[in-house]
């Protein structure tokens, strides 16, 4: 394969020549282009075919109906030929005119039967496609929901959407547009060939002479289109990513008056996709036209040699009519051969990507002998926990962290940005698995427990929270949608959200917009606190989730949660020391390690980093700034 034309650098080059100058970094936007391996394609095709035959009844019916429809279809030229001959015979008074009625009836019946069988064929084939789509949809959804954070960190959401929507279509269409059509065409040609060759060898050969050519062209086309599809999908992915990020980040674009910059970026992505689209059209058109040409050439030959045979009386005019009609019946499927080939190409690329997703092995999953966590004491214990993103052990985000917290205790966590606070908080509900060390709840290592029970035992109010596009009420009740309404109000009150909600036009029924844009930052954070409170976990984590809430409100939340906190471990990450002063213990984290720990008073007495922070926040004065500068 012309692998050289496919690698990312080549694409980059094309883009850059299309757009000179240091633009947009469009080259860097292209993600790895998987190399094209035709075998992978065949593997995917085989697997899709197997999936289709998971519905043996419908698939079998589709194929059987195809055979029947083909038989009817083939009978029509024969009957027509007979009609022509009979008409001539009647003209020459060698037959009774009444026999024409029988032929007409036969024609009608054959047509109706063909129609009915085609209906059965199409409907069964399409329903196999829809049923497959149902299975794949469920599998994809389940997979996406359960793949760990590390997978989603690496995968752009746009790519997943492409796989889940467009690739699904490619696979769904496979059975009806590719497989059944192949059978149809194969049968038409195969049976037709037998029929024609046995009638008249020369004419038969001539009539079918275009088939090898068409077969060759379609193979060439299949490979070319498959390659083009693969790259095109990727480029369209880049294009939609550029558009999506532009719209989502429109404020930044405006703030930097960067619309020209963005349009350049868009143009680059758009041009490279357009260019490939054109290539795709070219490939398709050239090949289908060539196939049609071959078909007509064969027809011309049949006309000439058949005509000579008719003149010389070797064959009847009816036989020639049969040959010609048969060819005109073949015309449609030959034109559709392009579609069929395209269907294969599409199914194999789409299938390969779908299966890559479905087969993706989750690193964080239930152990084979996983059991539900049993919460008794509610003690959280971290022992020597280390973690690195991407398994890169010399860049540990968290290293050697140990601490213990009992029911009713609150642990505060502070540290500079990037020190590993969020990472640590994400290890406890097992969003990621630690590289070393262990996290235990009541003595049970969470890696040995079922994921679901861990997630229920550990609840996190995340730093930037995703709100669902539904009512406030549904958002609050997300973790437990079968709860009672008064419980929703209770947690909203605890999170100091109730009053704000009453101020909204639709109260609890107000639909929260995309990612919650119609709420203020503070309201959003309170909503995400409220929905976490629904969970009644053994460990409750606030990950810097009160930064947009003013301290007064925050302290009211804290008061409201006093009773609630008695039954569980609470971990609070915050920058505002007032938020965690009251904690039983405070951990100061830097470079993934605990550098100081103790109660607020102990840490102040220690006079270290925490104390500095405290000084800075409480007594910000010029002298302080100077002292800090010297101290560094």
């Amino acid at each position, binding site marked *: 394969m012309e692998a050289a034309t496919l690698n990312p650098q080549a694409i980059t080059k094309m883009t850059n020549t299309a757009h000179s100058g240091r633009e947009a*970094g469009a080259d*860097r936007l292209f993600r790895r282009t998987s190399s094209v391996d035709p075998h992978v394609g065949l593997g995917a095709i085989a697997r899709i075919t197997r999936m289709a035959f998971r519905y043996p009844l419908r698939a079998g019916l589709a194929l059987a109906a195809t055979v029947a429809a083909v038989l009817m279809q083939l009978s029509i030229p024969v009957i027509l030929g007979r009609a*022509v001959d009979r*008409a001539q015979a009647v*003209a020459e008074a060698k037959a009774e005119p009444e026999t*024409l009625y029988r032929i007409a009836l036969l*024609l009608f019946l054959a*047509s109706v039967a063909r129609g*009915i069988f*085609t209906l059965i064929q199409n409907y069964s084939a*399409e*329903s196999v496609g829809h049923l497959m789509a149902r299975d794949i949809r469920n599998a*994809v*959804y389940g997979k*996406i*929901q359960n*793949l760990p*954070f590390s997978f*989603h960190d690496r995968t752009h*959401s746009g790519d997943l*959407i492409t796989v889940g929507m467009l690739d699904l279509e490619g696979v769904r269409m496979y059975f009806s547009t590719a497989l059944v059509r192949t059978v149809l065409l194969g049968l038409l040609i195969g049976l037709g060939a037998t029929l024609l060759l046995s009638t008249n060898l020369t004419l038969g050969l001539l009539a079918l002479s275009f088939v090898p050519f068409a077969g060759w062209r379609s193979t060439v086309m299949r490979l070319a289109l498959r390659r083009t599809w693969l790259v095109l999908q990727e480029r369209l992915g880049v294009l939609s990513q550029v558009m999506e990020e*532009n*719209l989502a980040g*429109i404020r*930044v674009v*405006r703030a930097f*008056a960067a619309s020209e910059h963005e349009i350049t970026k868009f143009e680059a992505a758009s041009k490279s996709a357009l260019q490939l689209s054109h290539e795709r059209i070219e490939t398709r*058109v050239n090949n289908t*036209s060539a196939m049609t040409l071959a078909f007509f050439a064969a027809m*011309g030959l049949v006309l000439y040699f058949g005509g000579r045979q*008719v003149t010389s009386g070797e064959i009847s005019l009816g036989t020639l009519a049969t040959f*010609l*009609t048969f060819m005109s019946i073949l015309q449609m499927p030959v034109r559709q051969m392009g579609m069929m080939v395209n269907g294969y190409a599409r199914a194999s690329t789409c299938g390969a990507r779908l299966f890559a997703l479905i087969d993706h092995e989750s690193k964080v999953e239930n152990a084979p002998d996983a059991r539900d966590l049993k919460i008794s004491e509610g003690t959280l214990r971290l022992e020597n926990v280390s973690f690195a*993103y991407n398994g*890169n052990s010399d*860049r540990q985000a968290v290293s050697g962290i140990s601490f213990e917290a009992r029911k009713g205790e609150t642990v505060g966590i502070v540290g500079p*940005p990037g020190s590993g*606070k969020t990472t640590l908080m994400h290890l406890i509900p097992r*969003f990621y698995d630690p590289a070393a060390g262990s996290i235990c709840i009541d003595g049970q290592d969470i890696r040995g427990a079922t994921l679901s029970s861990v*997630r229920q035992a550990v609840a996190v109010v*995340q730093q930037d929270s995703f709100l669902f*596009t539904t009512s406030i009420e*549904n958002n609050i009740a*997300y*973790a437990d949608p*079968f709860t*009672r*309404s008064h419980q929703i109000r209770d947690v909203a009150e605890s999170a100091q959200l109730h009053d704000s909600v009453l101020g909204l036009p639709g109260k609890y029924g107000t639909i929260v917009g995309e990612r919650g844009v119609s709420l203020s930052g*503070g309201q959003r954070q309170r909503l995400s606190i409220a929905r976490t409170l629904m*969970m009644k976990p053994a460990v409750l984590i606030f990950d810097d989730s009160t*930064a947009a*809430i*003013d*301290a007064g409100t925050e302290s009211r939340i804290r008061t409201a949660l006093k009773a609630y906190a008695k039954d569980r471990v609470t971990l609070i990450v915050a*920058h505002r020391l007032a938020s965690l002063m009251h904690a039983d213990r405070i951990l100061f984290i830097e470079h993934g390690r605990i550098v100081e720990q103790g109660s607020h008073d102990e840490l102040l007495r220690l006079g270290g980093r925490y104390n500095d922070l405290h000084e*800075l*926040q409480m*007594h*910000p004065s*010029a002298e302080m700034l100077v002292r800090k500068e010297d101290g560094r």
Partner: protein
Amino acid sequence: MNQTRTSESRDPHEDGRTRMRAVVGSDRIEEEIFGRVFDGKVTRRIWQFVRPYKRQVAISVVTVVAFTCSQLSIPLLIRYAIDNGMTPDAPPGILLKIVALFALVVATNFVASLVQESVTGRMAENVLFDIRRAMFGHLQRVSLSFMDKTEVGRLMSRLQGDVNSMQEFLETSVLAIGDILLLFGIVAAMLWLDWQLALMVLTVIPILLVVRILWLTRARAAFMAAHEANSITNGALAEAIHGVRAVQAMDRASLNAELYGELVDNTLNAQLRASKLAQIMIPIVDALTGSAMGVVAVAGGLMVASQRIEVGVMVAFLFYIQRFFDPIRSLTMQYSVMQRAMASGHRLTEVLDVEVGVEDAPDAHSLGEDDDGSVEFRNVTFGYNRENPVLKDVNFRVNSGETVALIGPTGSGKSSSMALIHRFYDVQDGAVLVGGHDVRNVTQDSLGRHIAMVLQEPYLFTGSVRDNIRYASDWADDEAVVEAAIAVGAHEFIEALPQGYDTMLAERGSNLSLGQRQLLSFARALVADAKILVLDEATANIDSYTEMQIQKALQRLLEGRTGLVIAHRLATIRNADRIIVLQQGRLVEQGDHAKLIEHGGLYAQLYQLNYASFDDLPDELSDEDRTLAT
């Protein structure tokens, strides 16, 4: 649904309601997918995009006519060959001549279809990309008030789905011309060959039309239902993808899979119904084809027998009947493509016609090097909707080179006033002046270059760290990028990343911590090297120590620039030349630290109470002050 978890067992009082809370995907109403077949306004609008390709359109039409004519003439040639070339008394060379003519027709057919398909295909693609570019470009200018209330997903579905169905429409509409021609051509050819036989055959047309029309209304409803079910399901999938972290955190995966399964089943049923309806026409059309052929066999046969027509005519008729139903079938298919395209076209025009809202005045001039960095609010009143203003009669002036802190509780209108400086929105009353010019009289681009902002929510793009810091400041070299990173204290962590400044950021920068993202967006604003620097709570997710370091760097960076800083922490605020206190959209006091302390207002009270942050307004205090202010 799993019966064990339904509402009755949990909540006997509110039957049904609780079940309604368990949903996946948004419950928004689907947009209309079928429009009128023809909408003059939409057509005109789309035509604007086709017009540049007039030549291609002409070529497509010409070639499609040529293609159709060649298609039509093939049965005629066959008929001629049979009647004149294959009779025993035919002159010897004539068959060869006819076949040569046939070859010519086939060659025309080949060239015409090659040219037609590739020209039309390319043109449709080009038009599609042009429309998309126009929409994208337009959205870059539309005011933020529109963007605020429009979901990105919705715009994306217009930029992609709707644009694609326009493409389908353009491609098929040229084919439709061919189909109509073919249909008329066949009718004409049959009438020409033998009008009596033709009329007998053509009686099937009215029957077909009536059946087709009856079918269409029912089929349309089914197609619509399938489309709707499908897009609801896809919406739920998109939600699962974007919200996957929340789903896992709240352990909803298995319940969601169950709910999604229901949506998928609904889609399946709707699609099966639509598919059944789509196929039902096939046997009907085939029955009619069969009857037409039967008519030719009987009537044509009898005519041949009575020597009224030649056999060749009968054969030609049979050929035409084979091709006769194809254009009818594809025309009705194109009918729904057309309806879908009109609905899409309508939605596209909607985007293209969104009012820009905040537009450059015709005589707007550019803010240049000579304009200073002063900012002035004159009696500014502003609200996101007219009824409840967010800023009320605000007056202040920031001189060029000054650093001013803007403080006040959340929701007091700080971010909104910064948005006004950049003219994200227009004021309702009063005026905002930058560099001494009303922002409405200068170009937005030059205003953007004059002001650099760090927004409250750090938004980063997919791309390298370097590209993100540089962003639109094309002039900045790598040194400038590093310098900015050092200034905000980001250099250290960037260097520690696997590929340093060339490390690729994931979607929205999610492979960095939130604080780190905030630092990058800070550096991005420094690189922009503007006269005015606006910092909107740029350090909320950063600890005080790092913040203090940034503050020190800022003092140097702000030399010769105007600084507008929104912040909570006293440490940040104290260093400002002047402090402006906003409360509930009103300016309640302003002055430097010493003056405000002396004034003994809200600021002094807070300061004396040693509140670390101005968000730390205890209730009593703000209530008291609220009364003071009014």
